[in-house]
């Protein structure tokens, strides 16, 4: 019997568009820029094509999940720190922004940057003792953080206790709100993509690959982990600060487990380690969950089925699959 085998080859245009040579023709240039343009324009156009206020609000929420997914992917695939503490970041950023807004009367555009940086610093400080942990242990400890903080706020009746902080200012209007979060997602997406390709990003990847060798190279792994956790926490806290201003309320529901779990699901669907994948994953997952709302409690069943289908049939993730199809062609050859 004749035996055949599938062969994968890089497209000529991929090879040609590596490096400076890409600038020599429009075809190569568009090969590089088109996917990025489609992504950027697609996200920018989204608020216009949404039918009503409800779906416009969904976009803002999707973007916040996208930020969280980005932060998860960055930590998990470039540092080897699997963090289940998305809700923790959202909560810290949200509370800081809400407190600044209600007690000092600062505008959202002042509170959000402050909450991002101060929140990131607070999260890094609180997570600092867990940085030597790896793998499952880091995941479990970070999962505990939002739960613990929630109980502390409840029990000590801090920051309005179970009622939360009411009367937080909203964004001037829904357009500003949506384009602000969209801009933030794009900024952090391309920012982290650039970061992981610098020498500092290389050190991050080295910490994941082999932390003993990094120690032997005269570098403190805790220091580099702390830098990365600061960046990732910044993204999460930014999301939290935005959410508080979108819902005009800050409360213990900011520590909901959704903020920890959905980003991970988005990363699995989108393709880990690509950074774009998790963002796309959030843009697929969260709307699906909204669409399924009319099924009531059955929603979870459909949702899990969709997730399972993705994991079984496309376990590598959409983005990894898409990149492969874009860069390579396949053909059958005789053996």
């Amino acid at each position, binding site marked *: 019997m004749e035996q055949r085998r599938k062969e994968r080859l890089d497209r000529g245009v991929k090879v040609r568009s590596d490096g400076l040579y890409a600038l020599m023709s429009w075809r190569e240039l568009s090969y590089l820029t088109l996917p990025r343009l489609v992504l950027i324009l697609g996200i920018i156009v989204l608020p216009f094509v949404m039918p009503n206020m409800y779906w416009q609000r969904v976009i803002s929420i999707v973007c916040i999940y996208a930020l969280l997914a980005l932060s998860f992917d960055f930590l998990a695939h470039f540092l080897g720190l699997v963090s289940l503490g998305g809700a923790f970041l959202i909560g810290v950023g949200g509370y800081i922004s809400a407190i600044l807004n209600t007690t000092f009367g600062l505008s959202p555009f002042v509170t959000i940057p402050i909450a991002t940086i101060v929140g990131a610093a607070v999260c890094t400080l609180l997570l600092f003792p867990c940085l030597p942990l790896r793998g499952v242990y880091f995941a479990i400890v970070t999962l505990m953080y939002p739960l613990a903080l929630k109980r502390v706020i409840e029990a000590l009746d801090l920051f309005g206790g179970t009622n939360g902080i009411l009367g937080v200012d909203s964004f001037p209007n829904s357009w500003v709100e949506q384009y602000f979060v969209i801009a933030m997602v794009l900024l952090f997406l391309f920012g982290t993509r650039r970061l992981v390709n610098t020498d500092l990003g*290389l050190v991050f990847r080295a910490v994941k690959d082999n932390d003993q*060798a990094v*120690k*032997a*190279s*005269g*570098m*403190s792994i805790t220091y580099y982990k702390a830098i990365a956790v600061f960046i990732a926490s910044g993204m999460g806290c930014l999301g939290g600060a935005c959410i508080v201003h979108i819902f005009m309320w800050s409360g213990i529901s900011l520590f909901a487990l959704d903020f920890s779990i959905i980003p991970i699901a988005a990363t699995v669907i989108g393709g880990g380690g690509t950074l774009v994948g998790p963002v796309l994953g959030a843009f697929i997952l969260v709307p699906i969950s909204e669409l399924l709302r009319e099924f009531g409690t059955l929603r979870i069943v459909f949702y899990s089925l969709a997730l399972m289908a993705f994991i079984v049939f496309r376990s590598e993730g959409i983005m990894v699959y898409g990149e492969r199809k874009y860069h390579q062609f396949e053909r059958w050859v005789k053996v």
Partner: protein
Amino acid sequence: MSEDQPILQVKEVTKAFGGILALNRISFDVHEGDVLGIIGPNGSGKTTVVNCITGFIKMSSGKVYFRGKDISGKPPHKIADMGVTRTFQIMRPYYSLPAYKNLVIPLFSPRAKRTGGWRGGGKLGDRNTVGIDILEEIGFERDSYVPYKTASTLPTGYLKRLELARCLALKPEVILCDEVFSGLSMSEIASMVPLIERLQMDGITVVMIEHRLRELFRVANRVLVMNFGEKLIEGTPDEVMANEKVKEAYFGSEDVEEVMTHA
């Protein structure tokens, strides 16, 4: 600081893993420019000595001095930053990165920024270029594709060199080599020996753990024999070879000459 002060002093270092005494009051000095070989049967504590000196494990008691400064109990990255570097017996490259990118990481360290890499005069250029330069000097052919290959695809011989290259990127003063010859073919070892001799000519102090005695005795000017976590004897290669205790402990009842020819 006097001229003849040892660059590395190990004093009464003891390490116990639970009830097992892996190192029992080991003391030795390494002088600047020396190549010290550490030999001993399997499980005699050779790697544990290196781990204790470089801070990868905490010693139970004892002191290690580098240029008269107490480095015992310091974290490994601080010790590496001072110039006491090590290779690992089981190679630890960054498998997902190309070989030359493996060197960008040590070149990113504070020490490399101060010293500028192996040959650097304090100023570090483009890290990729410096990395490829170091790889070339250590035996990766520049014009071939080897420096650009992902570390996971490289054979053992290149990975062992990559281990050394990582140390060299820090412009070290002491290199502790944990079995750089093990797992290599005869011809690969033959090409590694001049490399060690070159390090010595560069003024780098080398401590080598080795099982390949013939090659070790060619490069080492002092040899330390360990057995069951204790120092058996220290001396020149000739003294060690002639010693009866060494013959008993290390070579068993066999004739030394015979072992040497089969090594």
